[in-house]
């Protein structure tokens, strides 16, 4: 049984994936800074 229903599971997934994407976007910003270095 899934406590809180399937909507809760979907919401947790969206939160996790959003966190992953924000991390990757932040990583990309750091890589961009490194690329600009002489």
């Amino acid at each position, binding site marked *: 049984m899934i406590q809180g229903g399937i*909507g809760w599971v979907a919401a947790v997934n969206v939160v996790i994936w959003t966190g992953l994407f924000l991390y990757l976007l932040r990583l990309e910003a750091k*890589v961009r800074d490194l690329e600009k270095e002489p």
Partner: protein
Amino acid sequence: MNPGPASALAPAVDTRPPSAIWRALGWLLWLWIALAIVGAFLWAPLAQAFIGQSSRILFFHVPMAWASFVAFLAAGVWSVLYLVRRDADHDRAAAAAVELGLLFAILATVTGSMWAKVMWHAWWNGDPRQTSIVVALVFYAAYLVLRGAVEDPELRGRLCAAYAVLGLVVAPYLYFVAPRMASFTLHPQPVVNTAAKVDVEIRMLTVLLASSLGFTALFFWVHRLRLRLLRIDARKNTRT
């Protein structure tokens, strides 16, 4: 992973950052995958003959396996390009593709194992498809071991490229042929639907294809990021 120093005749490493379009595509990819997740849990119906909500894991497990296959194929293609052109960037691209292919294959194996526990009451069953993905994992893990074992960058590039080109035969065989050669498999047949018929329910198919496309795009996006990091490493090595 050490990309090795460039030779005096090798072109400079191009580390120009990508355009704003690539950054925008990243946000679009997030939106796409978020919609696929919502569709997987709230829109696609459950498949019959699956216990409870367990069929929903297929919208992640199958795309992850597919993305790993795409990654291994891409590694083979970049390796062919390296053998033809001897451009170190192709070697870096192949290596990054194998790394990510392994990551997606491990994720597919883990999610598959979770589903196996629910459906078959054991984390591992010796099923042909389970066995073949483990063989694929070992095969491509050996690529990384080979890469770490050879110091000379040009020799390393040639050996690893030849190995990954072999993977262009091995990967399709392990993913699509070997599991079908077994006389019996616990795995569901390639189509999954709510009434156990041959055709796939349209909503399930839509979410499965959307998720597969999203994971494939995710691979290429993260691959590009990894490749840029490898280029930065290479640039630093040319200056030391």
